[in-house]
């Protein structure tokens, strides 16, 4: 029985199909991450503004995103947009929208704390040396910020990958759906397929996320020494 179960993975191109399925959600994660980084950099700089009103709205946006479960946001966009804006978003588009919305807030907060962690005298020394505002950012602040950002950015990426597993609940055909298809197709020939298929999906996610979180931990350690 044991041998029979694991066979299911190597029947036909099942294993490949699972990876293709995982790639669907990874692709969503990568696209959302790209937009989140671009927008988050901007948002982070806006967040360091001294204007009270600007700060308040930034805070409001961040807290709103933080307090709502991502799945609720997904539902809001996926079901809400279809009804009110009369656009029928595919699950994938809705996911990219929501995860970018979420990622931008998280990324912005990371950028903000990285910017604020740079001592004021770095700016002041820059000005004293005759750099302009842009020069100070370009040559002094941004290089240091990026170094400090890298570990937390990688952690955000793994979180993004983990969160995109939710898209199966709004009907995107990704790895879990493919897994279900495989299980259902062999319901009678391989009754314990579910164990193996879900087990393998579990390991696949681990295989994708682990290198990134490991790299993040190493970078973080290197940065601290």
């Amino acid at each position, binding site marked *: 029985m044991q041998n029979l*179960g694991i066979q299911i993975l190597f029947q036909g191109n099942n294993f490949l199909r699972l990876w293709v399925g995982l790639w669907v959600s990874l692709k969503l994660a990568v696209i959302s991450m790209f937009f989140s980084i671009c927008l988050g950099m901007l948002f982070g700089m806006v967040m360091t503004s001294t204007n009270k009103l600007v700060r308040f709205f930034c805070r409001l946006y961040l807290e709103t995103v933080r307090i709502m*479960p991502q799945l*609720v946001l997904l539902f809001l966009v996926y079901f809400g947009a279809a009804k009110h804006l009369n656009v029928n978003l595919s699950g994938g588009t809705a996911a990219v929208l929501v995860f970018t919305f979420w990622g931008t807030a998280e990324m912005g907060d990371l950028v903000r704390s990285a910017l604020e962690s740079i001592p004021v005298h770095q700016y002041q020394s820059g000005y004293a040396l005759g750099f302009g505002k842009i020069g100070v950012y370009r040559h002094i602040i941004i290089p240091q910020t990026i170094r400090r950002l890298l570990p937390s950015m990688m952690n955000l990426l793994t979180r993004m990958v*983990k969160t995109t597993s*939710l898209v*199966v609940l709004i009907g995107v055909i990704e790895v*879990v759906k493919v897994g279900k298809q495989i299980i259902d197709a062999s319901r009678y020939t391989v009754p314990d397929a579910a*164990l193996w298929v*879900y087990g393998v999906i579990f390991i696949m996610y681990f295989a994708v*996320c682990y290198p990134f979180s490991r790299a993040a931990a190493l970078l973080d350690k290197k940065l601290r020494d």
Partner: protein
Amino acid sequence: MDFEFIRAYAPLYASAAGLTLTIAFFGILLSVVIGLLCSLVKIFKIPVLTVIVNGYIEISRNTPLLIQLFFLYFGLPKIGIVLSSETCAITGLAFLGGSYMAEAFRTGIEQIPKIQTDSGLSLGMTGLQIFRFILLPQAIATSVPVFCANIIFLIKETSVFSAVALADLMFVAKDLIGIYYKTDEALFMLVISYLLILLPVSAFCTLLERRVRYAEFGNSNPVSGK
């Protein structure tokens, strides 16, 4: 917006929210216990257990809760372990939360400079006394922010439990959308329910964080934390 509808179905949401909270409560309680045990194993570097705990932490932190639940709920029955939706949800949440809590406690203790332990030793304190009077009070203070963030994170994660046939808030909302096409009302109540659950928790956490900052070592300006 159909307020009659909202009034009619509010009790459904209330009971779903109750279920979500119950599961979250037990899940978080278990994860705190697991987290404490794991962090103790890591701090005292107990030989074989450290490897197991490290493995557990990496696995649990690098896989999505949804996949963990699918494995527990659909996979395990095939080898004879049948879990009910509720057990499955609590197990999943504790499995996920345990590692996050462990890391929170561990970093809390590791942040305390080594010199404090040494000073304690030179004052003639025993290992247990050092832990009890020097390390623990500071560790609690420093790990509170992370601990609070974890609790909010875990409550948010409960939203995926509908996937293992638990009639939680998401499940009710999806049902109402499917049956009555009352998308607005269902989603509105969903958002309100989560706000009602999470806002007080978040506000309480902010308060708590401010309180414990006073206890931080070498913190001359507790309010701004600088």
